[in-house]
């Protein structure tokens, strides 16, 4: 599986290419089929964006099809993040009145909800109707938090629900590598919370509001929760000594100019961790997790690369935003 991924050294070469050259290069990879199919509807950066999303959905669906029993259940739980992504995208699209076709372009049917169901949701007239259509699903408790004014509470509730379910599902597994998988999920929650702390502490937001935006669970939840609302410099100093500190130590300073650089580094750290644990039990779900995480990162990198190139951003800036394990 790993051989199907674009090697890290290739990103440096892709940085010196233009969008057409990148699309041509992608035609020599596993994205060929999607690029050929979608080239009649899209061109340039849009073609690459949609082709990579489409390929991602196809790959993840294939993983679900070839797996059985508990690994299948775990993969599905993990891939529910794409259901959450799709529901959020549909709600956002409906919120500002986008057409069904426009919303469909940005859906990634890589989770449990299939294309037909998602298409049905996009055809609903309003946010309330979408929420009503999802009544009775696992997502309805989160969706019930919609106040009719802002989507933020629903979005946060959906994300918290996803991580709660994931941690619970992995925590109950007896499969080989289950312990490491749980460690990974907890670390992901910690990293997400850490990114939220970086964003909100930097903006000087009150501790109680930050704590509301932290995902329950994770290994360091209590420690990270105590860091909410701290002055930024103090918060940064408090991070020294944690396992992720090495990934950000050279750029994490009190006068940090961009949190998205920190975010890219922390995501890179998480991908490296996923790969590291994937080698422990070759016949467990862990190598699949490593692949899923790397594939998602690859698609994100290609999108950043192509959109950055077409917007005329400098190579240095694009490189800073890319997640390289």
């Amino acid at each position, binding site marked *: 599986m790993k051989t199907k991924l674009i090697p890290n050294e290739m990103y440096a070469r892709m940085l010196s290419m233009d969008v057409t050259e990148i699309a041509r290069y992608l035609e020599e990879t596993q994205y060929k089929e999607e690029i050929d199919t979608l080239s009649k509807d899209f061109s340039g950066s849009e073609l690459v964006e949609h082709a990579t999303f489409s390929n991602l959905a196809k790959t993840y669906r294939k993983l679900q099809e070839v797996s059985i029993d508990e690994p299948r259940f775990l993969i599905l739980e993990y891939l529910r993040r794409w259901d959450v992504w799709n529901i959020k995208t549909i709600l956002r699209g409906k919120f*500002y009145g986008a057409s069904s076709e426009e919303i469909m372009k940005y859906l990634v049917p890589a989770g449990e909800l299939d294309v037909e169901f998602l298409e049905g949701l996009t055809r609903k007239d309003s946010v309330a109707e979408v929420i009503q259509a999802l009544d009775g699903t696992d997502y309805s408790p989160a969706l019930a938090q919609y106040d009719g004014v*802002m989507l933020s509470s629903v979005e946060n509730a959906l994300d918290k629900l996803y991580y709660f379910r994931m941690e619970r599902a992995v925590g109950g597994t007896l499969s080989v590598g289950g312990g490491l998988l749980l460690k990974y999920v907890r670390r992901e929650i910690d990293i997400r919370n850490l*990114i939220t702390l970086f964003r909100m502490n930097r903006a000087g937001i009150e501790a109680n509001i930050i704590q509301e935006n932290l995902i329950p669970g994770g290994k360091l939840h209590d420690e990270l929760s105590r860091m909410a609302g701290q002055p930024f410099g103090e918060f940064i100093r408090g991070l020294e000594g944690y396992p992720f500190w090495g990934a950000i130590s050279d750029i994490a300073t009190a006068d940090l100019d961009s949190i*998205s650089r920190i975010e890219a580094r922390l995501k890179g750290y998480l991908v490296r961790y996923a790969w590291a644990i994937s080698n422990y039990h070759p016949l467990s779900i862990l190598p699949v997790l490593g692949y899923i995480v790397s594939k998602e990162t690859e698609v994100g990198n290609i999108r950043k690369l192509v959109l950055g190139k077409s917007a005329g951003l400098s190579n240095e800036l694009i490189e800073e935003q890319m997640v390289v394990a």
Partner: protein
Amino acid sequence: MAVIRGTKPTRAVLIQLRRRIKVAQSGHELLKMKRDGLMIEFFEVLTKAKTIRQELVQDLLIAEQRLNMAKGAEGSVAIKSVSFALQSEPSVELDSRNIMGVVVPKITAEAVHKKMYERGYGIIGTSASIDEAADAFESLVDKIISAAEVETSLLKLVDDIDSTKRRVNALEFKVIPDIKDTIRFIGFALEEMDRDNVVRLKKLKAKAVKRAKEEEAAKAAAAAAAEVGSV
């Protein structure tokens, strides 16, 4: 010589014109001072406007860059929907202030900079690039409002400098010279009238003298004739 049309060359008009020229000259001085003051103010505002415009262009480039980075991180539809998620729009309050008689706008904006959690999108599922794009656009809106205030002030100052300059020039090259010419004209006309009067009086005097002489001569002749008759 350009004399004001329809002016009657009388002493009353002359006095009136002398008063008018005094007013015009002091008005000219005042307007010149206003023009110079406005010019000084204009150059100060111009420097400010140039700086703000440069910062505005810079902020726009940064905002576009951040937006593109956010699009790369989150996808276009997420960015679009996040931008529509905002419910409370910034409000702008218009007031005015006075710079040497020129009324310029004073614009104050409210609720441009929002806290992250007031922007309407979920924090957990979005990336920092969205915050950075939103921050950059909020700064851009602030800068646009400052630029609108400064650039409108600049345009109003230019308009006023222009009209003041026209008034100064009109007074300097038309009104004051015309009044001066008219005063000179009335002066000449009054002198001419004086001369006419002198000549007329001289002639009348000569006539009267002549008549008196003739009457005397006639009286003398009558007296002589009466003498001759009595003899």
